[in-house]
């Protein structure tokens, strides 16, 4: 009996050691693909920002020194910030309601959330281009209700971009927030009530703080995603109201200016990675779920 156990321990040692090598080898094809077609191209692009047309930081000086480009940065941050705030304001009550409403009703809402998320991005953006145009349904409705006399310019400006992007980002804030609120123990709120808290106090001093990690993580994700968005701003914003991703595309496609394109890409990457670092630092994945 003893010898058999020994033999097995002995036997398992050697293959286990060999397996360790094989396990790493298994990741090599994917690693090769990512290095060759992701890491290398991105590094080359970023490197071109300091080598073309002349070595140095000239591209960055131009990018951060011109009012045209600074306005594009401002547009990007303002729209992303607005989209985040509006998504959060709508998303919190919806996630809260989903966490407690009867499951049959909740599953209908979930189906709509999924349908909206999975529907082709261009189809959704197209819908808003049509809805928001001068002769579109929204303007007609507002005029019909007597709220305005002339059609509002809702598209080809940042209003259109904000509406379209909020539409796209809402599910991304509702779903994680729902997960966080679901995990909150209702007994804690009962305790708050027993201790004499009224509804507002319970909301502001118990439920909101408990949901805060989820709100912060969701908001950060939506903000970061919005910063780099290309399709929706390009179609709903028009050429006069560019955002950062469009600027990068324009440098490369129309102006064939790789130095500036690389510099703008680096700015976007640095901001994105910095915000993810903040997220990891303060709401590390293991802390995000529970409390």
């Amino acid at each position: 009996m003893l010898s058999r156990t020994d033999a097995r321990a002995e036997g398992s040692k050697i293959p286990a050691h060999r397996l360790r090598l094989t396990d790493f080898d298994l990741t090599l094809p994917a690693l090769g693909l990512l290095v060759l077609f992701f890491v290398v191209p991105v590094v080359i692009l970023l490197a071109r920002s300091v080598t073309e047309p002349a070595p140095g930081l000239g591209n960055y000086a131009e990018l951060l020194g011109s009012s045209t480009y600074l306005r594009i940065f401002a547009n990007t941050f303002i729209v992303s910030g607005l989209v985040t705030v509006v998504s959060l304001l709508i998303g919190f009550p919806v996630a809260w309601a989903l966490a407690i409403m009867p499951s049959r009703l909740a599953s209908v809402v979930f189906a709509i959330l999924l349908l909206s998320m999975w529907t082709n991005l261009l189809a959704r953006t197209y819908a808003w281009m049509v809805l928001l145009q001068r002769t579109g349904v929204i303007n007609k409705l507002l005029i019909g209700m007597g709220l305005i006399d002339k059609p509002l310019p809702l598209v080809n400006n940042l209003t259109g971009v904000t509406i379209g992007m909020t539409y796209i980002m809402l599910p991304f804030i509702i779903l994680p927030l729902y997960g966080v609120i679901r995990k909150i123990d209702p007994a804690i709120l009962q305790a708050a009530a027993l201790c004499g808290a009224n509804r507002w106090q319970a909301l502001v001093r118990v439920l909101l703080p408990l949901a805060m990690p989820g709100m912060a993580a969701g908001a950060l994700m939506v903000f970061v995603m919005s910063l780099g968005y290309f399709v929706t701003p390009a179609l709903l914003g028009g050429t006069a109201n560019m955002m950062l991703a469009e600027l990068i595309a324009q440098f490369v496609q129309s102006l064939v200016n790789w130095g500036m394109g690389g510099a703008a890409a680096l700015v976007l990457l640095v901001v994105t990675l910095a915000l993810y670092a903040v997220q990891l630092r303060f709401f590390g994945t293991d802390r995000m779920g529970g409390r």
Partner: protein
Amino acid sequence: MLLNFDRLGWWKLVLIGITLLTAAFLLLPILFIAALSFGSSQWLIFPPPGWTLKWYQELLADPRWLASAWTSFQIAIIVTVLSVLLGLVTSFGLTRGRFMFREALKALFLTPMILPVVVLAVALYAFFLQIGLNGTLTGFVISHLVLALPFSILSITNALEGFDKSIEDAAVLCGASPLEAKIRVTLPAISHGIFSAAIFSFLTSWDEVVVAIFMASPTLQTLPVKVWATLRQDLTPVVAAASTLLILLTVLLMVLVALVRKGLKS
């Protein structure tokens, strides 16, 4: 109190109201497009003055729409197969391996998912200009594979982490070869993960537009690129017809996913 639906009082009505309005906000534009695709107005007037199928006829009569849809489908299928195979192999390595930098490697594999797509698009475009892959099927497949692989690795790794490896070991003790045990015991047990990997990979490629705009050539473009190029010119109802077909596909996929989930549970 606040987490008990029946004891919310009038707050309940407010919460339900906001939720239903939000659901309508998310659903109505999709229904709106579907309705407009059957409307007879060239200018997308709503409600439409009459009903027609002519936008669908125009869509299906134009060989460029069909060609781009076929290109998209081919690319998405190849990407799905490669992404699932590569995802499987990589996930086995990542889940079972105990090597240095495993977490760092895992993080690297997921980065294409979180970085702005436009950066990858521009970088790959420059790279492919050098090696002549722009406007080729291979170029599309490679770039979409980079984007799809993280979803595949994530789904399969999750499934594999929830699988008790001792069951596979038991099969080996009973005389199966390690590979046989993986194929006949482990793979069926993680099939839900493989299925999600396939669905996500397919959708990632099929719907991808940013990289595709850069990869496309006048002779080879995907369906999203065709929609994009058309929308840059005008808001023709033909796009509404194309969008409606895409929405129909989404609904079919959702039903398929729901059915498979149900089947896997029972």
